[in-house]
């Protein structure tokens, strides 16, 4: 709320009830209009510029962060009202622990307070249908913050219309490393040991059970030649997780044919690592179930990714760098970006259509 720190006639006018009402209606109208066009399914924000904002306005750094979180609330409202499914925000980088202790503590306290407020208003969040997820390295956090996180996450877990991913302590390289690690773990765990403890939502023993069930089925009607081929048992790791037995996937993870014969006798059986694809790694990322990232916005004119969403944004994501500082960021900055995105998307679709029709000729 930038106007709190401004004085004079504009402030008085802005908070004059009829005027405030008119502005509110205008916002609603514009957001409604935005909904009519294509809307990005997944938007990410790097909330940069809180400290510079505080420095320029001669207010406390912590107050700058506070106003940044107000800006976040405003922009989340715009996003969800206009139909964005997933919003990912870069709240705190692992590198941010290098800042002064005072500031880190204040940020943690703020996170705790805000999440505490969320927990008090679970019913209101239901209206937006948004569930909160905290993604990042939990082991860097203090237990009291973790408790607040868990409470807020549990409170909103049943909502399925929209998702708010809060990257809190996060770096993308850590995320990729963790994904590689857990993939290696998955593929180096003998699939007939049931005792492995699982870190993820899907229990490994459960997956293993499914795999075994399907493998037994394969064994019964497998011919000798069939056994030699690499893609003998097209079990996809993804499908195994969801428990479906669809046999027409490209991301198939076959059994090691040599060890297949004596599965039940001796020697561990592994999933075949050659079947690891981008999808496999994708499913181990922290944003696994989110749609592909359509739009990434960074404020305060810094044109860098700073270890954020590296894996997710390097394909077709539109990356936008804005000059304004995060606490100033509002519908009026976001609207042009969205309209330009819609315009580009429409042009892209037209191009694809033209290419498709020219190929048919």
């Amino acid at each position: 709320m930038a106007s709190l720190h401004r004085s004079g006639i504009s402030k008085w006018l802005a908070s004059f009830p009829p005027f405030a009402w008119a502005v509110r209606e205008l916002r609603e109208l514009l957001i409604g209009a935005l909904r009519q066009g294509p809307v990005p399914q997944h938007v990410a924000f790097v909330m940069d510029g809180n400290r510079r904002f505080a420095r320029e306005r001669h207010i406390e750094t912590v107050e700058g962060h506070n106003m940044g979180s107000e800006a976040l609330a405003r922009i989340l409202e715009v996003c969800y009202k206009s139909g964005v499914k997933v919003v990912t925000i870069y709240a705190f980088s692992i590198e941010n622990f290098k800042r002064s202790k005072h500031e880190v503590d204040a940020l943690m306290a703020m996170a705790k307070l805000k999440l505490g407020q969320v927990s008090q208003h679970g019913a209101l969040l239901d209206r937006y249908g948004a569930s909160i997820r905290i993604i990042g390295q939990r082991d860097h956090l203090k237990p009291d913050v973790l408790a607040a996180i868990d409470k807020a996450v549990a409170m909103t877990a049943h909502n399925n219309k929209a998702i708010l991913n809060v990257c809190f302590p996060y770096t993308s390289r850590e995320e990729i490393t963790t994904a590689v690690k857990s993939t290696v773990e998955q593929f180096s765990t003998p699939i007939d040991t049931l005792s492995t403890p699982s870190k993820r939502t899907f229990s490994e023993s459960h997956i293993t059970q499914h795999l075994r069930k399907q493998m037994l089925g394969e064994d019964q009607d497998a011919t000798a030649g069939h056994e030699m081929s690499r893609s003998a048992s097209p079990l996809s790791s993804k499908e195994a997780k969801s428990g479906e037995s669809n046999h027409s996937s490209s991301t198939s993870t076959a059994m090691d044919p040599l060890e297949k014969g004596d599965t039940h006798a001796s020697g561990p059986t592994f999933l075949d690592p050659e079947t690891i694809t981008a999808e496999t790694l994708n499913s181990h990322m922290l944003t696994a179930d989110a749609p592909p990232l359509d739009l990434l916005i960074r404020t305060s004119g810094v044109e860098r990714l700073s270890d954020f969403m590296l894996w997710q944004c390097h394909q077709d994501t539109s990356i936008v760098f804005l000059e304004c500082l995060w606490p100033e960021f509002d519908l009026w900055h976001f609207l042009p970006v969205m309209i330009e995105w819609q315009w580009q998307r429409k042009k892209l679709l037209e191009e694809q259509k033209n290419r498709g029709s020219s190929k048919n000729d």
Partner: protein
Amino acid sequence: MATTGLTLKEQTAFLRDSLNGKPLTPEEREALLKSHLPPTPSSSSPTPSRTNSKRAKTRKVRLHKPKTGRIRNFVHFVIYQTIALIFSVFFRFRRAWRLFWYKVCGVMGHHHRSPEWIVNDVKNLEQLPRHLSVVLDYNEDDEDQGTAGLEGLLNDVCEIAAWSASAGIPLVSIYERTGALKNYPKQTYEAISRTLETYFGPHRCPSLTIKSPHMPSYSRPTTPTSETTEDGTMTSRPHLTVLFLSELDGRNTLIDLTVTLSHMAQKGDVRVDQINANLIDAELNDHVSTEPDLLILFSPTVVLKGYPPWQLRLTEIFHLPDNKGVNYQVFLQALKKFGKAEFRVGK
């Protein structure tokens, strides 16, 4: 600016979490928020027990009739079409203006194929990137720009190599999605050295190495690294390395690494807890490329098109909005911006 549509009382209440000097209770906060919320979702709530009483209260306030909903929808549609029309005209004019302006700048600040001009352009910069990266496009048809196909691509590569060598950048990596030039290291080498010669002349021409991941590097073994000038002193020639990257060096390399690590883990050669960011970083640095300091896009918008993700961590990304095609002004402005940029890790 009057942007939020909140009254002063509400602003204070939201920001300070207090109303008339008293801290807010959760109920008061909800009452304040009520008018800003969207209507209750039509689907039945999954947790009726908790929200029932509050729902009942809010239902009276916000009961939307389907008729007004339809009119509202129509109004939204009209507004959307109007905005889209106005902005599409605006975008087109802006692009035309910018392209015109870039052309003017391009003519005024041309480098005349002389390294001295380029040195003069960059001499006041505080820092230069040690590793510069560019993203190029393989155009199948040229829109009368003369940049189609392999030849156009090679032309761009040569120019960029020559500018970088003149500015004193030792390593340039060139990302192009299809990796078409990777298959012709010899021809690429010849073409780039020819361009360097036209810039520097045969005596001062920098030595050159062409590399791409998973392929042997290509350079002429006879190239002397230093030579004697007329007055008898030894001057070392600058060296330029050009590294070619393609889509395969992005996600696919990370997948390859995972596959290899999985094989090793299955044999027991590596434990899962031995895998960390430093290991991955070291492997990728050795086999693909190090982290570039500056990435220049010659496309109108910032879309990375499959650029290796791991390497982009703190890279400064530069593009000129609405610019299309390789030109010297983009290169120069990118270096100027980089020269001023400050680097803070997490601070």
